[in-house]
């Protein structure tokens, strides 16, 4: 469960406001989508949640823990697939994942068991012991997700997870995220793709220009905007169609 209250983050000594005022709640057992055009502040918001950036103002709680006060605690509770998904080319997929397992402080047996499980769920057996040089985007994302989930985290953050994936891989990934949800986890993903939230998310947080423009279920957003499809509702709620085509 994530609670963010009035988060604010500026860069360049306050000249660039990336996140102006973002508040939202992401409950357990649901998929929450941060929807917004490019540059709206989604990645910055996530980076504050996973402690790589310090907010200028506002507060956050992840399962009741304050990331600013106890960053290591929060990092243990979170599974994060950030925008950068670089793998180590000279290591095999299994070694890449096991490295993160060791950094999480897991023992050998647990790591082996978790890798077996994750490779099964995400259909990775075919390439799990190959070096990651020359992996396809889909294979890379799977490895990135597996290493983020190696420690069985209760809360999962994904930054534009379907970027660069083909239709089949995207479908498989959505299925996997739904499974995480049914396991009772709190799943938060950011995206600028409308269909993604429509197909996947229980709750939608629309972010534009560093602020939350609207928050609620798809049905609530449609009702509030008075439109009959999500795309129109989105344009109406953020007040422009800027960034939609990106």
């Amino acid at each position: 469960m994530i609670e963010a209250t009035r988060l604010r983050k500026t860069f360049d000594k306050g000249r660039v406001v990336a996140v102006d005022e973002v508040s939202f709640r992401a409950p357990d057992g649901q998929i929450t989508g941060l929807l917004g055009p490019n540059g709206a502040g989604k990645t910055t918001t996530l980076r504050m949640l996973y402690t790589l950036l310090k907010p200028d103002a506002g507060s956050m709680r992840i399962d009741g823990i304050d990331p600013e006060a106890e960053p290591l605690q929060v990092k243990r509770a979170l599974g994060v697939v950030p925008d950068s998904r670089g793998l180590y080319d000279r290591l095999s997929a299994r070694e890449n994942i096991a490295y993160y397992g060791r950094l999480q402080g897991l023992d050998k047996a647990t790591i082996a068991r978790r890798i077996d499980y994750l490779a099964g769920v995400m259909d990775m057996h075919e390439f799990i012991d190959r070096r990651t040089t020359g992996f396809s985007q889909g294979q890379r994302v799977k490895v990135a997700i597996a290493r983020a989930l190696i420690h069985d985290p209760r809360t999962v953050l994904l930054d534009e997870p379907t970027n660069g994936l083909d239709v089949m891989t995207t479908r498989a990934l959505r299925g996997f995220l739904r499974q995480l949800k049914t396991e009772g986890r709190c799943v938060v993903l950011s995206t600028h793709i409308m269909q993604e939230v429509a197909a996947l998310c229980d709750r939608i947080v629309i972010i534009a220009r560093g602020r939350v423009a609207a928050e609620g279920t798809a049905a609530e957003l449609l009702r509030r905007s008075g439109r009959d499809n999500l795309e129109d509702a989105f344009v109406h709620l953020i007040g422009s169609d800027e960034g939609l085509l990106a």
Partner: protein
Amino acid sequence: MIQVFFKEVLDNLRDRRVIVSTLILGPLLGPVIFAVMISFMTRQATERMEAALELPVIGAEHAASLTGFLEREGVIIKDPPSDPEGAVRREEEEIILRIPPEFGDAWTAGRPAPLELIADQSLRYTGASIARVRGYLNAYSAQISQNRLQLRGVHPDLTRPLQISVVDLSTPESRGGMLLAFLPYFIMITVFMGSMHMATDTTAGERERKSLEPLLINPLPRWQIMAGKLLATTFFALLTLALGLVAFVYAMSFLPTADMDMTLNLDFRVAAWAFVLVAPAALLAAALLIILASFAKSYREAQSYMGMVILIPMIPSFWIMIDPTRTETWMTLVPLLSQNVLILELVRGEPLNAGWMLLSIASTTALALVLAAIAGTLYNRPKLIFTSD
């Protein structure tokens, strides 16, 4: 921390470039260049000293007794080229002796008889030949003056109020030490060569691969991640240093030191001491290079910094080569310089000065730890984590 260390070591051991640059080229380059250079230099020097001297003489007929003396000394008198100055300038001849026609008159009149040595003294390789010709001529001159004095009933010793002799206390080891003046540089450079690739790969490389951000999301203080990388880099630097020293010990056995009447005091015992001495500099090099590479925006930018850093260990080495002075205590407090002077002491076969060793190790370790501490804070700067934005 230890996990980061093992991963970086494994990861980089699988990189062929690392194997080549760190474990083969790095350790071997120095000893090979050094051995080839030294044996070439010594062979040249001995050949020059031992080979018969060929001397073109102009106007040999004006001084038959002088040329006779030279021939008895083993000099081969040649006919002069038609354009002596030109021949020397074109480097066809190193040195030409000209005996002017007035030589005979001056000789019989008892006046100093003129002789000209035609040579280009700016050409370094002619130095030995000029010295040899001068030596013969001086010997001849001394012999004649003695004869003349004796003819006039004067004891020749009257003209020699001083008798100077140098008591040479240099040992074969210390003469070898002179030859080894730039050995420290080649040893110091292995540490930098060994850490260069690792420092770049684990920092700038990690950022360029876009694996730094996910790495930092792991529940590990950032300084520990950096410390793991620093340790791995130091490990490779030490590996290169150890291999380099072993290579040096073997390379030394190929040098024609016996011909030169000197011993090179670089056996495994000295190499072990050199390792202990230089080990703190490995940490220093690793920390310095990691700091630089962390600021680089890309792998290529980092590599261009590395090229410049390689010059740093040169500074003290060249200074010592150009201005060889006695080792003093303050020198052992200056990192990099202290290793230079103390390695020289070691290969000269001087008794170990434990105090100096400790000062050198302590001061270098202190500076290395300061740099390591700075490196440890680097990943607290968001700018160094996110490159794309």
